[in-house]
C-alpha cells in the first residue's frame, strides 16, 4: 500500500504542498522578469502536479532498499541515480510544456527559459526528489514500527493461548477418572470419605481453572492447589504416600507462574512413589536466597523402573521441559530448572527471580 496515494488526507496535503511550491516557483519567475504572473502560474502549477506523480514513485525506490541491507555506496548509487533521472525527466517536461503553450498560441504566457533557469529548474527537481525520498523513508519506518507492534501483539495472544492450552492439558484424565472410580468405591462403605473426596476434587478443579487464567499467583496459592491434589492422591494411595512441606514463611507471598509445582508433585507420585511397594515421602522445600525463590522437590524412586521411566514416552521429559520453556518465556535467563537422578532419589530444583515476570503488554 502506497503511504500517500492510498490515503485521501495525505494525498490532499501532498497536492497542497505541490501547489505551494508551484506558487513559489511562479513568484520567482515573475520576480526575475522571466514571465508574467498568469504565464508563470500556467507554467508552474501543471508541471509540479505532474512531477508529483514522479515524486510518489520514490516510495518504490525506498522499498527496493530495505533498511536492513542499506550500505552507503549502494544507497548513493540508487538514490542518486533515481534523483538525477527524475530531475532530467522533470526538466524535459518543463521545456516541453513551455514550448507547447507557446506553440498553441498562448505566446503571451511564454516563460523565458534561459540556460541558467534550466539549471535552476533541474536543481529544484533534485531537491524535491531527495525530500520525497526522505519523506517516504520516514513513512516506511513508521509503517514498519506499526506492523512490528501488531505482530508482537498477535504473538503474545498466541503465546497466551498456548499457555492456557498447556494448563488445560495438564488436567490429567487418568487422575480425574481414577478419582471418580475411587469415589464410586467409597460410596458403599465410607460415605463420609466419598463426600470429602468429591469436595476435594471440586476444589482442586475450581482452583486450577481460577489460577490458570492469571499470569502469576502467590506461592501460597500454588501450594494450596498441591495440598488439594495430595489430599485426593492420599485417599487413592493410602499410607503409601507421605508429603512433607518445609516452607519458609517469607516465600509464601512470592509471585510464581500458575501450576508450575503441581505437575512436579504429580510426576513425583507417578514416577516415584507409585512404583515403590512400601511407598515413600515427597519432600518439598522453599527458601529465599539472593533475591531468588529456591524450591526443591525430591522423591524416592524404584531403581528398576527408573531407567524405563526416563526413556519412555510417558517419562519425566515432557513435564520438566514444559516448565523450562515457560520459565524461559517468563523470566528470560533469570530462572532455572535443574534435576538430579541418583539410584534412590529424584530431585528437581527450581529458582525464580523475585522481580515480577517479564511484562506482557
Amino acid at each position, binding site marked *: 500500500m502506497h503511504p500517500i496515494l492510498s490515503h485521501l488526507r495525505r494525498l490532499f496535503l501532498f497536492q497542497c504542498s505541490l501547489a505551494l511550491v508551484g506558487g513559489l516557483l511562479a513568484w520567482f519567475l515573475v520576480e526575475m522578469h522571466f514571465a508574467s504572473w498568469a504565464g508563470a502560474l500556467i507554467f508552474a502549477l501543471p508541471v509540479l502536479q505532474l512531477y508529483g506523480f514522479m515524486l510518489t514513485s520514490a516510495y518504490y525506490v525506498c522499498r527496493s532498499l530495505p533498511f536492513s541491507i542499506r550500505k552507503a555506496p549502494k544507497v548513493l548509487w540508487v538514490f542518486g541515480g533515481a534523483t538525477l533521472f527524475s530531475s532530467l525527466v522533470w526538466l524535459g517536461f518543463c521545456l516541453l510544456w513551455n514550448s507547447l503553450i507557446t506553440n498553441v498560441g498562448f505566446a503571451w504566457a511564454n516563460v523565458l527559459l534561459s540556460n541558467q533557469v534550466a539549471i535552476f529548474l533541474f536543481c529544484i527537481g533534485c531537491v524535491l526528489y531527495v525530500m520525497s525520498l526522505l519523506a517516504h523513508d520516514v513513512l516506511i519506518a513508521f509503517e514498519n514500527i506499526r506492523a512490528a507492534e501488531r505482530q508482537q501483539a498477535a504473538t503474545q495472544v498466541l503465546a497466551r493461548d498456548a499457555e492456557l492450552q498447556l494448563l488445560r492439558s495438564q488436567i490429567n484424565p487418568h487422575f480425574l477418572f481414577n478419582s471418580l*472410580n475411587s469415589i464410586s468405591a467409597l460410596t458403599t462403605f465410607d460415605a463420609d470419605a466419598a463426600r470429602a473426596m468429591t469436595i476435594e476434587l471440586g476444589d482442586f478443579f475450581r482452583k486450577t481453572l481460577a489460577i490458570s487464567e492469571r499470569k502469576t499467583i502467590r506461592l501460597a496459592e500454588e501450594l494450596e492447589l498441591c495440598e488439594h491434589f495430595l489430599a485426593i492422591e492420599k485417599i487413592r494411595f493410602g499410607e503409601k504416600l507421605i508429603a512433607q512441606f518445609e516452607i519458609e514463611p517469607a516465600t509464601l507471598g512470592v509471585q510464581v507462574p500458575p501450576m508450575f509445582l503441581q505437575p512436579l508433585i504429580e510426576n513425583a507420585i507417578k514416577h516415584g512413589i507409585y512404583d515403590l511397594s512400601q511407598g515413600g515421602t515427597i519432600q518439598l522445600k522453599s527458601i529465599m536466597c539472593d533475591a531468588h525463590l529456591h524450591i526443591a522437590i525430591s522423591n524416592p524412586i524404584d531403581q528398576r*523402573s527408573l*531407567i524405563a521411566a526416563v*526413556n519412555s514416552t510417558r517419562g519425566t521429559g515432557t513435564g520438566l521441559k514444559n516448565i523450562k520453556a515457560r520459565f524461559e518465556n517468563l523470566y528470560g535467563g533469570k530462572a532455572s530448572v535443574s534435576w538430579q537422578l541418583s539410584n534412590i532419589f529424584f530431585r528437581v530444583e527450581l529458582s525464580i527471580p523475585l522481580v515480577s515476570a517479564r511484562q506482557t503488554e
Partner: protein
Amino acid sequence: MNQLSLLIVDDEALARRLSREYLKKYDDINIVGECDNGLDAVEAINTLNPDLILLDILMPKLTGLEVLALTGRTHGVIFTTAYDQYALKAFDLHAVDYLLKPFSQQRFDESIVRARRLLNKELSIKPHQEIPALLADTQLERIVVRDRGQVHMIPLAEIDYIEAQDDYICIHWQGKSILKTQSLSALEAQLDAQVFIRIHRSYIVRLSAVKSMERISKDAQLAVLFSGAKVPISRAGYERIKMFIL
C-alpha cells in the same frame, strides 16, 4: 453353573474393593487373589491360572499389556482402565471386554455375562487371536522378558541389537544378552522403524548404537557398534540403513 476363579489386578486398593463389592452377588465366582502391581500379577497368573482376570492397564512395575505378553495369556481378560488409548482398541476385539472407570454394577454384570459366554465357547473352539493381535499392535516402550522366574525390563534405549535364533530372539544390551520366545518380525512390527533397523534377515540393530560400517567384501558389510560388537548387514539391509546414515 460351574465355579469360576477370578483374579483382581489393580494398583488402587479402592478400585479392588469396588470390584469385590460388585462381585458379592456372584456365589459361583471365587476371588482367588488380588495384586497391586504387574510383577505380582505375572506370578499369580502363572501359579493360580484363574478363569477370569480383572486387569488394570496402567500399573506400577509392569503394565497390564506387558503382564499378558509375559504370561502368554490370551483369554478370560476383562480390562479395567481409567482412560487410555488401548481402551477403544480392546473394545473392537470382542474376545476381551473393557470397563472404563468409573463403571456401574450393571455394566460390570454385562461384562461378566459376556466373559462367561466366551469362556464356555472357548472349551470347544480354537483359542482367541484378539489379545495377541492387540499386543502386536502396541508400540513398545521397553521389552520385558521372563527368565527363570525373574522379570527383566530392558529399556529400548539400552539395546544394541537383536538376533534371531531359531524360534527365539536374543536381545543384546549393555554387554548382556537374553533369550525371548518371539519372532524377529513380530518384534520388528512393535518397534519404531526410525530407531530400530532390520539390517539382516536375522538382525535388528538400534540405529544410534551403530558406530560405523565396514565393508568386508564386494557385497558384504558389517555394522560396528559402540559396544564393539559386529553385526552383518545384508544387501537389502544396507539399502534400509543407508537412508538413515548417509
